[in-house]
């Protein structure tokens, strides 16, 4: 029993010694190790696993093999047309040559600072060489997009109200074509930066623009432009509404007049026809004895008209034929 305890104790002590500075070390997945003997690199371990070194003589420096992010400060840069924009870029890189990396930069912090220098200057160079739209846009898809009913103006069920003509300028605008676009600019930055990084044992995988913003003073003027543009659009809609309303009112006026005059025409012709028929009826009857008609009409007319006059009679009318002469006036 005592023997067992002694053996066990020895094992534990041995283990501790091995772990402390012994000949074994572990390289984990995603990592690599540089083995340095008396300040000189003798070996690079890139595969994971249990490795051997000379105890107390070899020093092990471990680096990651994984892809790392580089995140620069956003820079305020002028474009080719001298407009200032904030450009925020990030990059991904990895240590592909641990030996060189150890020789030239040693630490990841150092590497970042080198990358700062390289990438920032490339970004500045490329951005200032190109126009703003090359940096903002990536392709000419903006001109390929079909814009229909941008404002969703189909309000009524029975008819879709068309967009005001004055607004088609906003939907049919052709934007200037770009030649490169953001991806290509990124690629250009990468291609340039890539030339420098191998000396640090670093491979740059990509540089991407994370965000582009206007500088503050530019933002203000862009806001104003946007507001103006919206105001114009709003105005166009309102004017269009007024116009369409006027059209309806005009249409109403026209139809009302046409209805009224049509009715007048019809009414008058009906009346005319009736007048004609009445005339025919009268003529047909009165033709039978015009002389009697004249007498009859006179009598009827006197009956109607005479009560309206102030009257002073002479004895001239035939009525008085028998007044002075019982045989009647001759």
């Amino acid at each position: 029993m005592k023997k067992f305890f002694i053996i066990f104790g020895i094992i534990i002590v041995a283990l501790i010694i091995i772990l402390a500075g012994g000949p074994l070390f572990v390289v984990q997945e995603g990592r690599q190790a540089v083995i340095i003997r008396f300040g000189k690199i003798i070996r690079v371990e890139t595969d994971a696993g249990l490795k051997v070194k000379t105890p107390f003589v070899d020093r092990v420096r471990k680096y990651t093999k994984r892809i790392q992010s580089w995140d620069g400060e956003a820079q305020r840069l002028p474009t080719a047309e001298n407009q200032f924009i904030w450009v925020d870029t990030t990059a991904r890189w990895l240590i592909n040559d641990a030996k060189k990396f150890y020789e030239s930069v040693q630490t990841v912090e150092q590497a970042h600072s080198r990358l700062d220098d390289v990438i920032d200057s490339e970004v500045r160079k490329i951005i200032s060489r190109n126009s703003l739209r090359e940096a903002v846009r990536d392709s000419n898809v903006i001109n390929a997009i079909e814009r229909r009913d941008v404002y969703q103006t189909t309000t009524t069920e029975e008819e879709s109200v068309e967009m005001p003509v004055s607004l088609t300028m906003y939907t049919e605008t052709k934007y200037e074509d770009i030649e490169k676009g953001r991806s290509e600019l990124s690629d250009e930055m990468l291609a340039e930066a890539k030339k420098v990084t191998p000396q640090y044992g670093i491979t740059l995988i990509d540089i991407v623009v994370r965000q582009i913003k206007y500088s503050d003073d530019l933002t203000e003027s862009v806001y104003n432009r946007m507001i103006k543009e919206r105001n114009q659009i709003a105005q166009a809609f309102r004017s269009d509404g007024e116009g369409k309303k006027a059209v309806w009112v005009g249409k109403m006026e026209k139809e009302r007049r046409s209805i009224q005059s049509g009715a007048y025409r019809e009414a008058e012709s009906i009346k005319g026809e009736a007048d004609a028929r009445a005339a025919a009826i009268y003529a047909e009857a009165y033709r039978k004895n015009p002389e009697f008609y004249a007498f009859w009409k006179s009598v009827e007319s006197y009956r109607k008209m005479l009560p309206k006059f102030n009257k002073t009679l002479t004895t001239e009318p035939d009525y008085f034929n028998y007044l002075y002469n019982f045989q009647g006036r001759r």
Partner: protein
Amino acid sequence: MPNAQKRQAQRFGTRTIVTVLIFIVILFVLLSSVYIVDQTEQAVVLRFGRYARLSEPGLHFKMFFPIERKYKVPTQVVLKEEFGFRTERAGVATIYSALDFPDESVMLTGDLNIVDVEWIIQYRIVDPMKWLFKVEDQRKTIKDISQSIINLLVGDRAIFDVIGAEREMIQMQGQRMMNELFDKYELGIRVTTVKLQNIVPPKGAVQNAFEDVNKAIQDRSRLINEGKQAYNEAIPKAKGEAERVIQDAEGYAVERVNRAEGDVARFLNVLEEFNRNPQVTRTRLYYEMFEEVFLEGEKTDLIDKNLKNFVPFKSLGEGRTGGAQ
């Protein structure tokens, strides 16, 4: 060894110390060789830092600590990143952080306008090995790439495309491009959803101007409806009135003809009588008329027809002559 410690060791005995040591070691070995993988997870086991095996959910054993290590990865869980906003506490009524994140959400559009875009992505870890050992700062990488891609896609379109019809397109293309890049980095994830949440013009005056356009559209509908209403009000009324005028005319026509026929009928009857006795009828009609005309109303002055140059005294005064009746 100092005397005090020697005495202590003698009191407890080497045996006791060794027993405790053994106990601790055994406990450590046991604890580090048993592990449970949850249903939502997988675990990668490394032996001396080298990939050994992948453990599915359940109870597992491995060699104790320095020899084998395990890394659990939530492969079944859908993970989420938010851009431009943060969920403070999810729930029935989710609380969002009151803060804005303009550094993520403010973008330039292709027509050089400014727009504020909030979006989320959802992803799952599909390859735990790659997830763990291929890329550092996985979340930061995911965020950076997602942000740059959405920026790029928004920058490629006009502002009203982004706000309106192209939203779907951006989501689809964004998801595809993100997956392509993450595959290139061997990040071991799959983006399952890219969803644009809130796409608005910059807050304040600009947003108000955009709102005003919507109001203008409403105004326009209102004006058009007003026009229609006026039309609908006036035209049926005019039609009714027209109908009335025509009906009126028709009434007139019927009346006119009827009257004519009545007049004629009367005339013809009288004419018939007249033809039978011309002289008598003529005289009768004449005297009847005369009576009727002069019977009514004021008395009539009568003057002999032989009085020449008679000045009617009516104009001289109010006196009356009896006349010669």
